[in-house]
């Protein structure tokens, strides 16, 4: 122990990392590294395993024992999934709602954050309170559903976009960020004759790009993953189904409790029964549905993370 402390005393001011580590530390690092690698494997393995199954021949997959790589390669699973009527419609609606929903929601949240972050706005505190209450008290599933029916929002595409446009939580994050922008920018623009809307579009918004990106990504992921609203409001309208809802139906049809090789007998539903079974279809559909997120994830993940801490940077 005595050795440890002298070493620290001498080395710290000179170098950031000590070169020699005490034995206790070496053991700790080894175990810590092993533990974290195991953690990463546990996180990734199920995804990679599903990927392997999705590229494997159907009948062959029933035997199990596939881990990281397919045993008998086949892309028939994807052929079968990507030609399903429901999946195609679902994909179209999901892309549409993701784009439209993200744009409208971003605009709505940004504009509300803008007026709430103006120091001179007369109703600033009352309007914030009005929205903060909505974070804690919600009407619940049934009253909301009935309201949407009265408003003729159910059985339509717009139920995905209009009701969830403003989120108090996102507004609070954006508002905190906007409040960190110096007032002098707004004041000088106004002296030169700019109105509030010009300040919003020409001065505040360009400075808010990072927080806009983060919120937009959160909303986009929400829309991409949404299925419950499709089930609740558009169950009878296959033309407004969403991708995740189609995936859910597929998974439920194919096997209820996924108790082992259920597939063989049901495999006959599909045209090329020899190579496509429910196990591999499920895998292919799952992978196809998560593909866009996985593909974009490495490039966008830093925005995701800043979102959690972004509001707090400015105080």
């Amino acid at each position, binding site marked *: 122990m005595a050795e440890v*402390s002298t070493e*620290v005393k001498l080395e710290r001011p000179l170098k950031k*990392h000590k070169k020699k580590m005490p034995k206790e530390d070496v053991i700790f*690092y080894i175990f*810590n*590294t092993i533990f*974290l690698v195991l*953690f990463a494997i546990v*996180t990734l393995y*199920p*995804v990679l*395993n599903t990927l392997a199954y999705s590229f494997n021949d159907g009948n062959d997959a029933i*035997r*199990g024992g596939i881990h990281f790589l397919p045993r008998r390669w086949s892309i028939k699973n994807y052929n079968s999934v990507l030609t399903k009527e429901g999946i195609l419609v679902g994909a179209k609606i999901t892309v549409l709602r993701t784009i439209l929903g993200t744009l409208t929601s971003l605009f709505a949240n940004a504009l*509300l954050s803008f007026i709430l972050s103006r*120091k*001179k*706005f*007369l*109703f600033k505190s009352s*309007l914030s309170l*009005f929205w903060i209450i*909505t974070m804690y*008290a919600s*009407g*619940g*599933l*049934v*009253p*909301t*559903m*009935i309201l949407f029916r009265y408003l003729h929002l159910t059985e339509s595409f717009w139920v995905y976009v209009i009701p969830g446009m*403003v989120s108090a939580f996102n507004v609070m*994050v954006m508002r*905190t960020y906007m409040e960190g922008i110096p007032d002098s920018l707004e004041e000088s623009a106004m002296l030169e004759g700019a109105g*509030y*809307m010009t300040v919003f579009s020409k001065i505040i918004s360009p400075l808010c790009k990072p927080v806009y990106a983060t919120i937009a990504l959160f909303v986009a992921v929400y829309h991409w*993953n949404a*299925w419950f609203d499709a089930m609740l409001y558009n169950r009878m309208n296959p033309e407004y189904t969403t991708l995740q809802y189609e*995936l*859910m139906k597929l*998974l439920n049809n194919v096997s*209820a*409790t*996924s*108790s*082992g*090789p259920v597939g063989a007998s049901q495999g006959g539903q599909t045209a090329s029964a020899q190579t496509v079974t429910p196990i591999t279809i499920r*895998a292919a559909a799952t992978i196809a*549905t*998560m593909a866009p*997120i996985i593909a974009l*994830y490495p490039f966008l*993940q830093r925005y*995701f993370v800043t979102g*959690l801490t972004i*509001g*707090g*940077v400015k*105080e």
Partner: protein
Amino acid sequence: MENQTSNSEKKLDYYELKAANDAKLAAKRAVAETESDEGSGKKKKKEKTGPKFTKKEFKRQWILVVIGGVYVLYGLIFNYLPLIGWIMAFQNFKYNKGIFKSKWVGMDKFKFLFSDEKFILVIRNTFVMGVLNLVFSTIVAIAFAILLNEVRNKHFKKSIQTISYLPHFLSWIIVVAIVSDTVSNTGIINEILLNLHIIDKPYTFLAHPGWFWPLVTLSHLWKETGWNAIIYLAAITSIDPCLYESASIDGAGRFQKMRYITLPSLRPTIIILLIMNMGNVLNAGFELQYLLGNDLVRGVSRTIDIYILDWAMDGRNMDYSLGTAAGIFKTAVSITLIVLANTIAKKKGDERLF
């Protein structure tokens, strides 16, 4: 953990004082959303000396007022009208008759709810799973954050972290598909158990009620640990490194530093997050349970939200009033829990939400 923190408080030497100070800063930085909530309350006082309500000022910012009005209208329709819908719980609501013509039944619907065995069962399930999730996700996320913080190789640290929060962005449907594949008869869990000769034939986890709660908790951990750890990592990073240095000069080992510096510093963050999550204990019980549950485990899988959904969707015995009543119960309990947690934190002199 309770023990550790109170121990360290008794000591109250230089490090702890510094740590406590630092922790407050960390919590403020990390829990941005909470701050902004509080902010509105504080600003109210400031504002009274701020803009004066004059005709001139009103005219100057008419556009803000108009936009604000649009948002009020939108909020009234989509957020406040459903609250008015709560009166359905005191009626025998029929969609065709509407809210004005349906028959009033007083508290009958609530009486029915609390005499319904199924409802008591779903309350129990929701609470147990909510508390299990809250406890384990907090502990595991903190442990993960602390361990990750000890890693020196930046690239290794970054890769592990990036991998760790990937599942957060997958939908519950995908997660359930993955989880049920993993624990299926041909899945990796059974394969490992078979190879280790712990079992001699595949075990169907999803068909056994005893395994449902652990599976739900584990699925949550798989999906959210990395994500939950982000906020703790941010708090750990903002702890003053001087604390660790002076502690090691005094001969503190790695684990002592974790215990007497890191954990006490995280205390405010942990408390604020716990309070915030208290309100979600009942909300965390829908998608996963709905998707992962099956008829064999009905008794333990069904939650309040699933119960409500049954009344709202099932064609034969649909009863909107009962669904509304159960929803009111849920909201009331959630708000009570938040207020309660907040009061306890206030009494103990810790950070609080409002």
